[in-house]
């Protein structure tokens, strides 16, 4: 117990020191954030102002859609089984209130089994699962856009595949990945054709891009400019190294106030060389991001969106919609529509069990479907 306590004490002390520095840095930037401008068009930061104030959308007359997916997986003696589903939710708002809700394809879509029959490595299995889940979500998203033509479509997570998803070309699941990329492109096309703003809300972002920009450009720029007080400069000088140990969400938590968003920045410094972006052809450079703080006691969310030209207008509109849908609970700044989509798409172990039992009914009690021993202890 003493060892645990002393270890915790050490850790607590380290965390406190780091937090103190973050607070110093964050407070300093926060003090001057209204005065931070980027007059020259930058390849990374696409707006003049570092932060912008956002008004929540009135929701007088708007249709918003969101998609989420759920997946459960289980490995058996000779097969790996994944069951997934995706649900799209469509909210119609009138006069500031939610007046109608629709679902696509159903309010509780039937789970789709995805199987891997050949022996497969854990890595491949994880990648494959992620790809299949994403395919379900993305296909549901573009079908929902085609059917309902929402003003805004929100995805749970980024609007590009996750980096971990991309397998090697030699991988068994590479073909599946290619299909996924085609689906994303189809999604972007569909959104453009239907004039739907497409954005992804990343709730627990581990992104480092904006922090990196702060470290490389913004903070040095502030110090060099001599426009601000010595106090600010000293504070920044003494704390800037903390940016190496902080992610964007944490940094922006100290800088943004409720109802503020960060500037729009490019998803990647060099989209053509980015592992995922370069697969998206011409769309690669259209993927931009910003952070939004919608409630006082929660971290900002990262929003990736498809930029079709008017950067500020697009970002403001998306931010105002997400803000309006997120601001009700001061401790949980997540859009209500994504909460509903998650509830519709979620799957449990019981769902997996039902699918497994039904498969066994059709196939019989074959060795391939024997459960792994570690999950089947007799006592």
């Amino acid at each position, binding site marked *: 117990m003493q060892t645990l306590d002393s270890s915790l004490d050490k850790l607590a002390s380290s965390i406190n020191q780091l937090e103190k520095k973050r607070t110093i840095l964050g407070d300093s930037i926060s003090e001057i954030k209204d005065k931070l401008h980027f007059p020259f068009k930058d390849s990374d930061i696409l707006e003049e102002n570092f932060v912008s104030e956002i008004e929540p959308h009135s929701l007088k007359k708007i249709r918003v859609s969101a998609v989420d997916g759920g997946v459960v997986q289980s490995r058996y003696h000779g097969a790996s089984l994944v069951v997934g589903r995706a649900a799209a939710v469509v909210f119609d708002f009138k006069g500031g209130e939610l007046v109608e809700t629709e679902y696509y394809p159903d309010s509780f879509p039937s789970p789709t089994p995805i199987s891997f029959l050949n022996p497969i490595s854990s890595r491949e299995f994880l990648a494959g699962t992620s790809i299949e889940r994403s395919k379900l979500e993305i296909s549901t998203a573009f079908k929902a856009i085609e059917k309902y033509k929402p003003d805004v479509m929100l995805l749970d997570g980024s609007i590009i595949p996750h980096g971990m998803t991309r397998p090697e070309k030699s991988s068994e699941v590479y073909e599946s990945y290619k299909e996924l990329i085609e689906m994303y492109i189809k999604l972007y096309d569909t959104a453009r054709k239907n004039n739907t703003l497409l954005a992804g809300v990343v709730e627990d972002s581990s992104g480092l891009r904006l922090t990196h920009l702060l470290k490389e450009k913004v903070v040095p720029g502030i110090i060099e400019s001599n426009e601000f007080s010595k106090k600010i400069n000293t504070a920044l000088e003494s704390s800037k190294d903390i940016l190496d140990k902080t992610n964007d969400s944490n940094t922006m938590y100290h800088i943004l106030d409720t109802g503020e968003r960060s500037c729009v920045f490019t998803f990647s410094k060099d989209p053509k060389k980015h592992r995922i972006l370069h697969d998206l052809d011409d769309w690669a450079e259209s993927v931009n991001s910003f952070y939004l703080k919608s409630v006082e006691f929660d971290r900002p969310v990262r929003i990736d969106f498809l930029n079709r030209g008017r950067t500020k207008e697009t970002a403001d509109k998306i931010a105002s919609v997400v803000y309006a849908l997120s601001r009700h*609970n001061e401790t949980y700044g997540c859009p209500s529509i994504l909460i509903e989509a998650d509830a519709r798409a979620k799957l449990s172990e019981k769902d997996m069990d039902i699918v497994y039992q039904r498969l066994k009914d059709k196939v019989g009690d074959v060795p391939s479907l024997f459960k792994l021993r570690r999950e089947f202890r007799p006592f």
Partner: protein
Amino acid sequence: MLKLDLGTVISSVEGPSPTNFSFVVKENGTSVKRGQFVELDTAEGLLIGRVSDVRKANRYFEREESVREYEKKGSSMESIFPVDKWEFTVGVVKPLGVYVEGKKMMLKPSFPPSPGSKVRLASDDFLKQFLGIDNEGLYLGSIEHHDVDVKLNLTNLLQKHFAILAMSGAGKSYLTSVVIEELLDRNKEQGRVGIVMIDVHGEYTNFAEPVKAGSDKKDYSKLCKVLNGSNIKIGVPNLSGGQICRLIGGLSSVQTRDLKNKIRQIQKKFRKGGGTYNLIDIVKEVERSDKMKSSTKDALKNWIFSLNATGVFSDVDYPSVKTIVKPGKMSIIDLSSIISNKKKQIITSYIVNELFKMRRNGDIPPFLLIVEEAHQFVPEGVSSDYALARSIIETIAREGRKFHASLCLISQRPKRLSTTVLSQCNTHVIMRITNPYDLDHIKASSEGITSDTLDAISSLPVGEGLIVGEAVNYPVFVKIRERNSQSSAKSKGLEDAAIEFESKNDKKNEDAESFM
């Protein structure tokens, strides 16, 4: 007839089991109510059950802190989330019986229904069969939430006696009036009993009053007569020595022996043609005795004088008890003008004794004796000196069935009622009762009453009751039908009574003033 699907049986920690199952209600606006009867097909047969509880759930309202947080700024959850899409209703059912093809009786469920089975509203015919409704029976009302009339078989209800138990104002008198109407409406071919009503407050005398012209109420005045308690006389020659001793009460064995001897002597004289006699004659006989101790004489004289002072005794009965009971008719013994409890007890005890004696001899038709405020006449734990009628009423309760002498006890204090008599009433109609002692007493003395039922009893609205016992195969809640007879004047409300009194008084004063 199309059977209405209510929902689907679900699997839960507790069931389905032979004693309990739950079902999720269909989403199409179907409403399920507590107390409804449902049916479903099982491996055993057609199962019938009663909805014991109805619960609702909604995932958006499961965490109180989240609800509070979301609504803090004045928006309702409905304006933020599609909460209506997540509400579902679950009915909890207690299985009651299974109808097995080919078997005459309903069986107790011994096997659970399967998850996924469809639950339907119990069909009217099946429900009637299950509850033992008799289409030719006494029509008391309708089953809550079903379009089924509650008609109770006359023999099942009356032959083994019944009790109506409820707190003041719950509708006992109304229900009693409905029962009386049903009995008076029967024709000869259906079988009719005579009704004798011990009416403590004169609440039922309206039956004997002609209905006012233009009223839509049914006139029963030709079938009913009122016997004013103040006018009732008990013929002393019809009383045995033992009866007189019991009426006096508290006599020692010597006093009892001596008094009985005197009365025997008087009775011998009467049979030899000596004419009739009364209590004063007995006093004179006691006075004349030279074998009796003077202290005994004095005591007996005092007691007999005291008895005589009630004004109830005479040398002949009035009316003749034999004329009180007629098939399909009612005699109302109106005790409202009598204040003395002892007098009420004496009259009731004598009349009921005579009725039972005559019924046993076949001198009068089968009858139903209705005793209002029964706890006054058959109280528990009270000396027989103060409950003179208890013994005979208990006798009827025990033996009346064999002689077709039926009992209906009405009381708002079941706890104070004789346990012997209450337990012999095989059907109870229980209306609203809130007194916890009375509720406990009912639970102990009524079969088929669960804690849930007890809760329901304490919140029953006026005019609804629970029937348990012989008259029904299973306890059933009934909404009492509208009465056809006119209401009693005594059923008017307090405000109306106060207004009426002042108007009368004002009129009196005006008349007095104009006279002067």
